[in-house]
């Protein structure tokens, strides 16, 4: 079938791929803009790291953008182990462990409850379910401030106001709208035939959830975990309202260290402490990559 025409391209006419210059004006503008923007976004991270590696004398002399002349890890050690907030002088490590103790159970419980919830809404619709769900979603938009104090009363009545348990419950409750939405949408997207087939086979509510839905839904669980770990770790408001200084989460403690009015400001220690606090969500973010994007997009767009 091959036609025996000679390759006209050899005569200098356009042939094959359109030649593109790597440094076309379009590319220079496009990549130039992107690089400048990327640098702007990276700048604070750079400043944090650089400052945390300098000694105080160097900070007082130079500007914050200059790389450290003499690298020291002392600010990091101090931020972690000996920085003071109020009477406690055991550094951010206390807040770190508090945050771990808050985040792990909160993530597990909130996801467990919300996934079962979403499953019930997607596959076992009962009368009135939609009403509660609508209220729940609207609740996500109500400013927390409106519900802060009633929640205090509720926790006080249960005798867990100011405890880690109380804070875990608060995170579970306020994480519920977005997580339920996430799981409901995901379970709705699973073909209904699968669910029907399992019912015909005699499986009930819990066995379908555990044996069929759960194994199919690993990605969405990961997305939910990413969402919750970063969200709960980064929380400040609930931490400061529902806990006491001894069990303040890391963010609250960080703020108290940096913004304390007593003593000389140690900027390098402050920046080290700031990085330390940001490290957990950043790690989650860099490891999870595209799933993180999927999580925030799924949580937000699919109203």
């Amino acid at each position, binding site marked *: 079938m091959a036609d025996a025409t000679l*390759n006209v391209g050899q005569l200098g006419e356009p042939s094959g*791929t359109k*030649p593109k210059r790597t440094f076309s004006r379009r590319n220079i503008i496009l990549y130039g803009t992107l690089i400048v923007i990327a640098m702007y976004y990276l700048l604070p991270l750079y400043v944090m790291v650089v400052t945390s590696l300098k000694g105080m004398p160097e900070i007082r002399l130079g500007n914050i953008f200059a790389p450290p002349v003499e690298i020291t890890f002392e600010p990091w050690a101090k931020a972690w182990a000996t920085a003071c907030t109020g009477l406690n002088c055991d550094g951010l490590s206390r807040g770190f462990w508090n945050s771990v103790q808050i985040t792990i159970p909160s993530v597990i419980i909130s996801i467990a409850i919300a996934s079962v919830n979403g499953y019930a809404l997607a596959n076992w619709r009962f009368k009135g379910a939609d009403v509660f769900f609508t209220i729940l979603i609207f609740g996500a938009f109500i400013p927390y401030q409106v519900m802060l104090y009633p929640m205090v009363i509720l926790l006080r009545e249960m005798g867990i106001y100011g405890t880690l348990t109380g804070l875990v419950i608060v995170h579970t409750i306020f994480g519920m709208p977005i997580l339920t939405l996430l799981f409901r949408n995901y379970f709705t997207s699973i073909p209904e035939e699968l669910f029907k087939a399992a019912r015909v086979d005699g499986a009930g509510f819990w066995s379908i959830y555990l044996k069929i839905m759960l194994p199919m839904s690993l990605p969405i669980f990961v997305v939910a975990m990413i969402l919750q770990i970063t969200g709960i770790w980064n929380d400040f408001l609930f931490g400061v309202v529902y806990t006491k200084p001894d069990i303040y989460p890391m963010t609250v403690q960080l703020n108290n260290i940096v913004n304390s009015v007593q003593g000389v400001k140690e900027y390098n220690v402050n920046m080290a402490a700031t990085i330390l606090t940001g490290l957990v969500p950043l790690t989650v973010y860099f490891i999870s990559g595209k799933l993180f994007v999927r999580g925030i997009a799924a949580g937000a767009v699919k109203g």
Partner: protein
Amino acid sequence: MANVSVKNLVLNFGSVEVLRDLNIEIPSGEFLVLLGASGCGKSTLLNCIAGLLDITEGQIFIGDKNVTWSEPKDRDIGMVFQSYALYPQMTVEGNLSFGLKNAGLGKQDIEQRIARAAEILQIEPLLKRKPSALSGGQRQRVAIGRALVRDVDVFLFDEPLSNLDAKLRADLRVEIKRLHQTLKNTMIYVTHDQIEAMTLADRIAIMKQGIVQQLDTPYAIYNSPVNKYVAGFIGSPEMNFFDGKLAGAKADGFEVEGKKISLKGYDFADAPRQAGQGACLGVRPEQVVVGSAAKAMPVKAKATVELVEPMGADTLVWSNFAGKPFRFLMEGTAQIGIGDKLDIGFDPAKANLFDAETELRL
């Protein structure tokens, strides 16, 4: 009017060869259909011709102008998409005029063109509406109109009817054919529907894995497919194939399961052949005759009915021939049941013979 020629076209996506050394000459005014299963490269080829994809090697000429490196808008083409691709927030009129305004045409000229296109496509009452208020068929008309107002030489259709239901599809098919007869433009039309291809095309190019298998008139493609793939792809219900071997001194017979079939009158291709060579005989279900007329056929047999599929006008009967499942068509009025014994026969001169190895026509 313009002819289109594709010369030595190669397209690679990374290391994947999507189109391999294609050469197609489309004379001015021809209606060419690119037909193939999904993933065969037919839409890709159309996008290359439109200039929406950069090709790896080769050249494309439209109207004797080398457009290999030209922008789509400079190629004198109009394109119609499967998803219509209408601009949803503009009215029909806005959709038709947007490209023209950008090309800097005068207001009067634009109005004239829109009026003419609207008249041809009978969409005058729809001009003020938005696409969301149109039915699928109306949207596709508008999409065709958008190509029409550009007053181009070549129309490209990318599966334009695939999103429509069966009845609308048949209606619009006729309209597209009528449009071609009126305008006499060169048209290149991608589809996976063989009925569309057969009814619309002056010539059909059947593609598989980035290669044109056969480029010929619908008649030639149906009656003398160049290889087994084309033979199996075209025609519904599908052709019956029998794997056997050539027999006889001149290799002009066919043997399958001990059954000898004379190929007298068969128009052999020029390829060399010899007795004992593996071959495959293809018989279309509609070439089989049943009942008393079967007695006049060179090949005769008794067939037991195994399954009946009534299709209205015709009835498809499943049976057995030479140890293989065998399908043939009967009239829709035929009263038959499972287990009935029928006289069947066919003329091997009208059958198709392929080499077992190369699958090329013998």
